[in-house]
C-alpha cells in the first residue's frame, strides 16, 4: 500500500499542541459602543506562542470587536488588553504584529512591490522582500499595479503586507476569501509554517473547514460572550452534546440502516443522541467503537454503516443557535 501523505489533510490536532506561553490577552473585557450596543460582555481570552487560534461566531457576535481591541484600533470600556506586555496602541507592540483586514479598496496606483516596500519600512526588522514574495506566492505580479490585480491576487498581496514585518503575532481576517483551492491550500501551509516557527496567528473566518484544518484552538463567540472554547474536536463534541447527556472526548456520528429503535439505541453505551428517518438512522456517540459493537451484536441485519466526525458546521450552529 503506498503511503502518500497529503499534508493539507493533516489537521493541526495531529501536531503537538503549543505550550501555554501567552503573548496576548483580553481580560474581563466589556465593550459598549456609543450607540449603547454591548458588543462584548466579560470576555477573556489568551493567545499563546506558536498557536493558531480561530475566532468563530455569527455576524455581529463581537469577533471583529475582539480583534480590533487586540490590534489597538479600539479601547475597551472595561477590562484590559495586552500584547507582548504592552498596550496594543503602542508602536513598540505593533512592531511585532501584522494584520490582514478586509479592505474595500487599497491604493490602486501603487505597484505590489512598492506597497510591500512601504510596509516593510514600518518595521525595524522586516522580513526579506524575497521571502515575502515567496510566502504570499506573488511571483510574476510584483510589478503590477494593485488596481490591475484579480481578487485572489489582491488577497495574497494583503497577506504579504501582514507578513512584511516578520511579526510574532498575526491577525488574519477572512484570509482566504476569494481564493481558489490551490491558493487557499498554499496560504494554509504558510499559516501553519508561521505557527511552527513560534509565531501566533489569530484567524477569523466563516469557512469552518478552514478553522477545522488550521486551528489548534477554536473560540466561538456569540452575542458578545464566549460560547465555547477548545480544540476543534472539543468544540465538535460540545456542539453534539444534548441537554442531560454530556458529550466528551471524540464524538462520532454513525449512520446506518437498522431495525433497532431509537429508544433501544439511546440506552447503548456512549450514545448521546439517536434519530431515525426515511433515509436511515443516525446515532451520535462519544464511544463509537463500543456503540458499534453493541449495535452489530443486537441487529444482524444492520447495513450501510458510515462513521464520520461531526461537522464543525453542525457543532457551530448548535452552539450559536440553541443557547439564546
Amino acid at each position, binding site marked *: 500500500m503506498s503511503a502518500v501523505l497529503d499534508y493539507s489533510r493533516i489537521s493541526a490536532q495531529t501536531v503537538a499542541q503549543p505550550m501555554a506561553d501567552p503573548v496576548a490577552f483580553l481580560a474581563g473585557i466589556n465593550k459598549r459602543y*456609543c450607540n449603547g450596543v454591548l458588543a462584548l460582555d466579560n470576555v477573556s481570552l489568551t493567545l499563546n506562542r506558536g498557536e493558531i487560534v480561530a475566532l468563530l461566531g455569527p455576524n455581529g457576535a463581537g469577533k471583529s470587536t475582539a480583534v480590533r481591541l487586540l490590534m489597538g484600533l479600539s479601547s475597551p470600556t472595561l477590562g484590559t488588553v495586552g500584547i507582548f*506586555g504592552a498596550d496594543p496602541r503602542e*508602536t513598540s507592540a505593533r512592531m*511585532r504584529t501584522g494584520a490582514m483586514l478586509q479592505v474595500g479598496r487599497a491604493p490602486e*496606483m*501603487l505597484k505590489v512591490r512598492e506597497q510591500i516596500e*512601504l510596509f516593510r519600512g514600518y518595521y525595524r526588522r522586516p522580513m526579506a522582500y524575497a521571502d515575502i514574495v515567496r510566502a504570499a506566492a506573488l511571483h510574476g505580479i510584483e510589478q503590477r499595479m494593485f488596481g490591475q490585480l484579480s481578487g485572489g491576487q489582491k488577497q495574497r498581496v494583503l497577506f504579504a503586507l501582514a507578513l512584511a514585518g516578520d511579526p510574532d503575532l498575526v491577525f488574519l481576517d477572512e484570509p482566504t476569501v476569494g481564493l481558489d483551492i490551490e491558493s487557499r491550500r498554499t496560504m494554509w501551509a504558510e499559516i501553519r509554517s508561521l505557527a511552527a516557527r513560534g509565531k501566533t496567528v489569530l484567524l477569523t473566518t466563516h469557512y469552518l473547514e478552514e478553522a477545522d484544518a488550521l486551528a489548534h484552538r477554536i473560540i466561538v463567540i456569540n452575542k458578545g460572550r464566549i460560547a465555547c472554547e477548545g480544540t476543534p474536536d472539543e468544540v465538535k463534541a460540545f456542539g453534539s452534546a444534548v441537554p442531560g447527556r454530556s458529550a466528551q472526548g471524540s464524538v462520532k456520528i454513525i449512520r446506518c440502516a437498522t431495525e433497532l429503535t431509537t429508544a433501544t439505541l439511546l440506552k447503548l453505551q456512549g450514545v448521546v443522541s439517536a434519530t431515525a428517518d426515511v433515509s436511515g438512522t443516525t446515532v451520535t456517540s462519544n464511544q463509537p467503537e463500543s456503540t458499534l459493537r453493541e449495535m452489530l451484536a443486537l441487529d444482524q441485519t444492520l447495513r450501510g454503516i458510515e462513521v464520520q466526525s461531526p461537522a464543525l458546521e453542525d457543532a457551530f450552529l448548535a452552539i450559536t443557535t440553541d443557547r439564546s
Partner: protein
Amino acid sequence: MSTMTFSPVTGSPINSLTFNVRIFLRESRYEFLRLTRTKSFALSVIGFPVIFYLFFGLILNRGQHIGSVSVAKYMLAGYAVFGMVGASLFGIGVGLSSELAAGWLELKRASPMPPIAYLLAKCASAMVFGVIIVSILTVMGISVGHVELSFGEYVRMFGLTVVGVIPFACMGMALALLVPFSSAPGIANMIYLPMSFCGGLWLPIMMLPKFIQQFAVLLPTYHLSQLMLSAFGYDSAGTAMSHWIGLLGFTLVMLGIGGIAFRRYEQNQ
C-alpha cells in the same frame, strides 16, 4: 495569576528619529507617485488652473494693463493659489476620505506606521503639486503673456505655495472626518469654487460686490492671494501681518473642528 514574561522592544531615540524620517520620506514619495499615476487627479488638478489662466489671463485679457498692473501677472498669483488649493482639498481631503471609507486607513493604523508621517506625506505631496502648478503657470505667463517676473518674486510665490498648503490641509482633514466619502468630492467642490471666487482668485477682489469683499476676510484664499500679490506690489487691502493672522486663525479653526471630529471618530471605535 500566571506570570507572563515578555521582552519589550526598545530602540534608541536618535535612531527613532532617522527611522521615522525615512518612513515619512518613503510615504511622501509613494503618495506623490500614486497621485501622478492617478490621471483623473493629476490632469484635473494641474489642468484646471492652467486652462483657466490660459483663457482668462493670456488670451482674453491679452497684454492688458490696468494702470501699472499687468493683468496676466495679477492672474498668475490668483491661479497659482487656485491650483494649490485644489491639490490640497482633493489630494489630502478627498484622498483621506477615500482611504478612510475603504478601510485602508485602518490597516495603516494597525501597523507601526506613525500617523504623523502619513499626514505629513499627504501635505508634502500637495506642496509638490502646488509648486509644479506655480512653475507651469509662471512659464506660461513669461512666454505667452510676456509677464515680467523676477527670480525673487518667483521664489516668494514658491514659498507661499508651500506654506499655504497648511491651512487647506487642515480643512481637508476636517472635511474627511466630517463628510462621508460619497459626498466628499461634491462638498469639496462646493467649498473650493465659491471660496476661490469670493477670495478674488478669478476676478480681482476690488471688482467684487462690497459685501463679498467684507466676507472675504474670513477666507484663506483671500489672505493667501493678497500675500502673493504683495510680492508683486499688487495687493489691495490689509497688511501682510493681517493676512498671516487671517491664515493662522483659519488654520486654528480647522484644527479645532478636525480635532473634535477626530475625537468623535475615536469614541465611535
